[in-house]
């Protein structure tokens, strides 16, 4: 495959590159090359297939014939049981999904706000810039689990009237606080990578500082940070599982409850599969987007 890509637009796809009267016919040399190339590709495909069959086959045989295989299968992969507990875990995952949407939206807004404050130069915002820097430093450096425990158990302990004691809300809050710090830094780095000449051009056209930001800097910054932001989204989906520590019945907690009843770990595996069903497509989408933006950049380099 890669062989063909390296050669760019091959001439045999209908339109000959040089059509100066008379149809182009590949020369003897070219025909011989094609035969040789085809042979080599066939040989490579054969080797790849043989090697895969050998390695994967051995692996499967070793696992299945090992003395602990039956115990392993019954402990982790008892599918009938897995299917039985699936609805409960899925119900728990609805919490993770809702949380991802709510936290994701809040994180995007707060992260953008913090990034804007950190990159602004307005004198009136000086104290906020200072506070934003401390906020980012602290919450990027503390484990999320710790923040969840502090907020989830610590705030109710204050016994402030009118403040919620719902661990679900507090847990979500902890996730939002931590992720906003990460996302703010991603967006800020995106803003900083927009070349100063773009600002100069915008300002020289008479655009104000905020217009420059809105029409010129942010659109370019977001384009660049979309892949890392999607990465953070994948991480967010997983990390919503951490609030199970507060006793919120999410997918992880639901699996834990089932496991503690049966001493069988299949529910955990089921929960893992549900997370994978969401995160793998997201990761693929991220990869595709990254590849596209790279291709676009390369196209620019050639222009």
């Amino acid at each position, binding site marked *: 495959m890669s062989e063909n890509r390296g050669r760019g637009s091959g001439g045999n796809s209908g339109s000959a590159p040089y059509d100066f009267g008379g149809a182009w016919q590949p020369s003897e040399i070219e025909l011989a090359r094609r035969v040789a190339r085809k042979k080599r590709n066939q040989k490579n495909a054969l080797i790849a297939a043989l090697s895969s069959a050998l390695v994967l086959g051995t692996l499967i045989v070793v696992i299945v014939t090992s003395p602990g295989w039956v115990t392993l299968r019954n402990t982790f992969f008892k599918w009938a049981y897995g299917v039985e507990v699936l609805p409960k875990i899925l119900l728990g995952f609805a919490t993770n999904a809702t949380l991802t949407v709510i936290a994701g939206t809040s994180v995007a807004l707060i992260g953008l706000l913090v990034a804007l404050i950190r990159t602004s130069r307005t004198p009136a915002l000086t104290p906020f810039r200072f506070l934003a820097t401390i906020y980012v430093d602290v919450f990027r450096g503390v484990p999320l689990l710790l923040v969840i425990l502090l907020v989830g158990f610590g705030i109710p302990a204050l016994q402030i009237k009118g403040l919620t004691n719902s661990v679900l809300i507090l847990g979500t809050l902890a996730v939002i606080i931590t992720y906003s710090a990460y996302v703010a830094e991603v967006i800020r780095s995106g803003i900083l990578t927009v070349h100063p000449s773009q600002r100069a051009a915008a*300002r020289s*056209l008479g655009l104000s500082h905020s217009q420059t930001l809105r*029409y010129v800097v942010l659109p*370019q910054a977001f384009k660049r940070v979309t892949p890392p932001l999607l990465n953070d989204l994948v991480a967010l989906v997983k990390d919503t599982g951490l609030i199970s520590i507060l006793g919120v019945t999410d997918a992880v907690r639901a699996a834990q409850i089932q496991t503690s009843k049966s001493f069988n770990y299949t529910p955990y595996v089921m929960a893992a599969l549900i997370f994978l069903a969401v995160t793998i497509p997201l990761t693929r989408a991220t990869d595709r987007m990254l590849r596209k933006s790279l291709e676009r950049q390369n196209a*620019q380099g050639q222009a």
Partner: protein
Amino acid sequence: MSAPVLRIEKLRKSFGAEIVLEDITFTVPEHTATVFIGASGSGKSTLLRCINLLEQIDDGVIKLDGQDISAADVNPDEVRKKLGMVFQSFNLFPHMTVLENIILAPTKVQGVSQDEAVDQAFKLLERFGLRDKADQYPDRLSGGQQQRVAIIRSLARSPRLLLLDEITSALDPVLVNEVLSTVRELKSEGMTMVLATHEMGFAKQVANEVCYLHQGRILEWGAPEEILEAPKRAETREFIKRVHDAGRL
């Protein structure tokens, strides 16, 4: 006689300890072009950026149509509405089409309606032979086309004064001419301009006055024939000779 479009008196600019411009005084009357020549690092670009208030000057006065735009209480955004600037590296906005690049300032800054701005943009594109590029993104255009779009972008705001900063330096020699002929056309229509350039032949054609900038000072100035063909100062002669040798005349 009315005030000149631009008058600069005793301008001084430094970056830290390094003095970039010193004792710069000159006048640009309406419908004329003043061309700055000089080696890289002589301060040409900085001078243009100072006029556009993209750099803060250390001393001196800059007057646009008689108004002191270097005064402390002047809003730079208001001043820049009257100025057009074209950069060496084009600086088109890569995420916008050619048309969007051109109508951004008229619609967002000058409050022109979308339809009117688009109309005006198409007229300019038509005039400079770029009508079919309106919906393209900048990275699909050649350097010369990009630079002409950048010129149109600053023209769309009907500036009083056009600042052109080495607009052909980043271009393939083959593409230089299409950009220069655009500028020649603007000159013939009476646009007032300040240019920094390495193209001596072009300078001779469009300039009313040529200033030779050497280590931050205007060392010699006068009509293009005087400066380019019979310079009085040894430094100017040396510079012109070097440009000659590099084949840029």
